[in-house]
């Protein structure tokens, strides 16, 4: 009998839904059906089954073609390449679990690498703002239970986090928001009339790139001062109205996204968003949250902060201590300055998501991709190592966009012989130790019975 597995986590977006239900075949090998997932989540569970998925590492040959090699060979190559490089960059982690991130951190420390994650090109500026101004935030359940005014600024959950609005922010009926959408006033700030903006009571169609101005106008108004007749393309009256809505709210929740971090001003836009949140707390209760993109992209920020003290852009090449200075130790800047002499792409697709000029720079040196699937990065790599799909074939801890840890399950067995990220990088680490005739450190703590944590639990 096929079996429904409940409370399954979805390994796609930062909403990290944990209420999926997955029907698994008798033999525990195939996903037959999913419930509750959005279109993207649904696709993940079905695509994992694709027969075209690679099951062995592939190494690029002198003629440019790819040839299958054994895992041992791939691990040996990765270990040697990392050890030979002066400044390797290990980047990615949009889609792996914290166990994998921890294993990679050990490899990076051993190899004197730079360790960076997708935040570098997404919410990195938010980290910079947090370093300067803090982060008054809350868990998503608080937004659901209390927020009567919800602001979406430079983010479009209807596209990037499809169930965010139904689980947490616009539609759900929470403890103190019993009438769901009727309880909430929605404000959307975006230069386009996005599908999220269409749901808003107030859409402020800000002039693209002028977010800082508009935040500034809100702060000014809240402090009782006058503002010009128009700011950032928005008429004064619209701003005054929206400011009043926020001020009179019982709980204001501000969600912000790439619209703030990808454009002029970067961290400064987020910095002033945080200041606005602080200001609002003089009038009512207000909270702010970055709309993190991937289901566990908050993970490396957590794991590496407790291991190294920094969430991203961590330069371990000094060997003695970790160093972080975004702009200097960030992936794109390092790549463009030509400082990187080995690139390892883990659980992401830098080939598709980096500006192509940065890809060209990185490709001048050994280029390795660790990812379950064929992607742009894998197709230009010198070596592609497939791994199991977290959340489908591999359990583990992930951090949702609000930094709440969610324990993901495994629902089906992975392809035979294909390791998890954690297993793979532990083997790379052990090989590096062999090659350098050193002792593995702190592997003992990992003698855990992870096998016990499967769908049966």
């Amino acid at each position, binding site marked *: 009998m096929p079996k429904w597995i409940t409370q399954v986590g979805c390994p796609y977006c930062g909403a990290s839904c944990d209420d999926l239900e997955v029907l698994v075949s008798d033999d525990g090998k195939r996903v037959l059906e999913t419930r509750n997932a959005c279109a993207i989540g649904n696709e993940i569970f079905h695509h994992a089954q694709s027969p075209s998925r690679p099951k062995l590492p592939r190494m690029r040959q002198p003629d440019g073609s790819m040839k299958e090699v054994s895992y041992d060979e791939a691990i040996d190559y990765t270990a040697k390449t990392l050890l030979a490089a002066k400044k390797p960059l290990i980047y990615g982690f949009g889609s792996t679990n914290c166990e994998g991130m921890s294993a990679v951190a050990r490899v990076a420390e051993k190899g004197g690498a730079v360790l960076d994650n997708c935040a570098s090109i997404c919410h990195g500026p938010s980290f910079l703002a947090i370093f300067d101004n803090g982060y008054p935030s*809350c868990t998503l359940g608080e937004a659901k239970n209390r927020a009567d005014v919800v602001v979406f600024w430079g983010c479009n959950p209807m596209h990037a986090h499809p169930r965010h609005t139904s689980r947490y922010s616009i539609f759900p009926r929470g403890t103190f928001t019993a009438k769901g959408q009727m309880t909430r006033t929605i404000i959307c700030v975006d230069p386009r009339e996005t599908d999220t903006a269409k749901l808003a009571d107030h859409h402020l169609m800000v002039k693209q790139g002028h977010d800082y101005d508009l935040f500034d106008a809100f702060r000014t108004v809240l402090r009782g001062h006058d503002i010009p007749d128009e700011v950032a393309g928005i008429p004064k009256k619209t701003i005054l109205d929206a400011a009043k809505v926020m001020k009179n709210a019982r709980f204001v929740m501000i969600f912000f996204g790439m619209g703030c971090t990808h454009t002029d001003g970067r961290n400064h836009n987020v910095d002033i968003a945080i200041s606005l949140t602080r200001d609002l707390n003089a009038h009512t209760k207000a909270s702010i949250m970055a709309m993190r993109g991937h289901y566990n992209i908050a993970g490396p920020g957590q794991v590496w902060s407790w291991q190294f003290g920094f969430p991203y852009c961590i330069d371990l090449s000094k060997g003695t201590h970790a160093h972080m200075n975004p702009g200097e130790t960030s992936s794109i800047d390092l790549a463009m300055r030509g400082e990187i002499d080995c690139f390892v792409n883990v659980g992401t697709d830098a080939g598709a998501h980096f500006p192509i000029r940065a890809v060209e720079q990185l490709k001048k040196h050994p280029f390795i991709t660790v990812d379950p699937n064929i992607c742009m990065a894998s197709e230009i790599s010198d070596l592609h190592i497939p791994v199991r799909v977290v959340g489908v074939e591999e359990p583990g801890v992930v951090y949702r966009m609000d930094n709440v840890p969610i324990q993901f399950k495994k629902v089906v067995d992975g392809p035979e012989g294909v390791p998890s990220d954690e297993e793979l990088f532990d083997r790379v680490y052990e090989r590096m130790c062999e090659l350098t005739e050193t002792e593995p450190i702190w592997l003992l703590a990992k003698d855990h019975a992870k096998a016990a944590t499967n769908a049966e639990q």
Partner: protein
Amino acid sequence: MAEILIRNGFVIDPTRNINGDVADIAIKDGKIVESVGASAKVIDATGKTVMAGGVDVHAHVAGPKVNVGRLMRPEDKLHKSPHAQKNYRMESGFSIPSTFKTGYDYARMGYAFVMEAAMPPLHAPHVHEEIHDTPIIDQAALPVFANNWFVFEYLRNGEIENAAAYIAWLLKATKGYGIKVVNPGGTAAWAWGLNCLTLNDPVPYFDITPAEIITGLMKTNEYLGLPHSMHIHQNDLGNPGNYEITLESLRLAEGVAAKNNFGRDTVMHSTHIQFHSYGGDSWGTFESRAREVMDYVNKQKNISIDLGCVTLDETTTMTADGPFEHHITNLNHLKWANTDVEVETAAGVVPYVYDKNIKVSGIQWAIGLEMGLYAADPMRTFITTDHPNAGPFTRYPRIIKWLMSKQAREETLASFKHTDKVIDATNIHSMDRELSLFEIAQMTRAGPAKALGLSGMFGGLSVGMDASVGIFDLNVNDMPSDPEAIEKAFARACWFIKSGEIIVKDGDIVSHGNKRTIWVKPNVAENPQVIRDIEDKFLKDYSVGSDTYQVRDYLAPNPYVIEFDVEA
């Protein structure tokens, strides 16, 4: 495991009333034994002090708010760490060290056990991930309960039995140790931007008061017979004049009797009492009320406290007292992180500089030490800094120095900008008491172990106890005239043996040891109503599933579970 014989040290073991006698300590299979064979490794402790491993009753070392602090404060890294050593993980951070540095630094000071003082249950997997990455030391974590909706509802209706069944379920689900109370009711109010500043302020929407929460949780704790007492961070922390509410809360323990099988006599542990012993009605009239509070603590035998000493450092404040952190950021205007946690609690983080040039910092420093010096029963008075709130745990050796040396206190006092004003507002200048090594061992070892219900394992050197032993470069018969030597001796143990394994030699780490996660599993009778309530709240109020919530076993790979049946 190898046998070890520690020879000829001055043994200080308050649990057996041994005060500096020269004796040998034999170790086998991780435990203290009568004797060992001739092949045992011999450690010569001649001329040195031998104590059980340290026990920290309250520190914030693992979990979401600690990590927010690390993440938010790149400027805290400070390169003070011993830099990476061969065969050890890189270390980083001063007031909020990385997990690796946390384990190494506690071990360097000869500490064997550390209690993570506030675990938000929803974030329990995170807490355990960090504990897992903290080498050497044994750890446990206290889930917070005093702003939890289940608890409000059960206690409001006087349903102690249901509260107990829920708490038993949650301890198991989160692999927690006991009942932590932080700003009862006030943190729940903070979810609406409010607070509870007296014991009778009703919690918005829940029709219950802080006094009722405290009393109810104390009763529930004894109903369950947990190893540790209820552990409380009281209302109105950090404000001038708060000593009265502190005394009022402490009085709630009167008449409550300890009921447990773990050798614990106390029913309330009042933490970082320094922050709660303030007089005056403004920062201008701010003054010490250490004496009033300690007079009460001294005579009320079913209470224990820890000091929460200010160490005069730049540090990071962090607490589940959300409204307090908002108050701090409004005072010092530094960056502020806050995390309200659905159904359960909240937390805030703000950097803080305890500056010698600021009068209030000096007074706070004095109050913490005064409380230690007024202690009539060091077995109920423990040394902490509420790490990292009043200062980092790595300053314990400095606090020991101040408590043991009037000269050291006077030197620090004299270095203040407002020495006279600090003297006027406190009693420290007139206090001559200098604590003995025996009293220090009570305050850092035997006492906290007993209050935690762990006296069978930690805090002493009796046969059968866990073989965690520190050897310090102090000669009981010839104590150094320079107080700095005391600080130095406690900062870096000559030797530290944790559960029978040599971890520190000449102040340096030589092993990653054998860390354990200790948690408590009280078995109560099945309670269908509570099970229904849990299912219901997860469906309606939480944003995660009840199954997702419960910490998987592999996250605590080396558990030490204290399991027992609760007699109804």
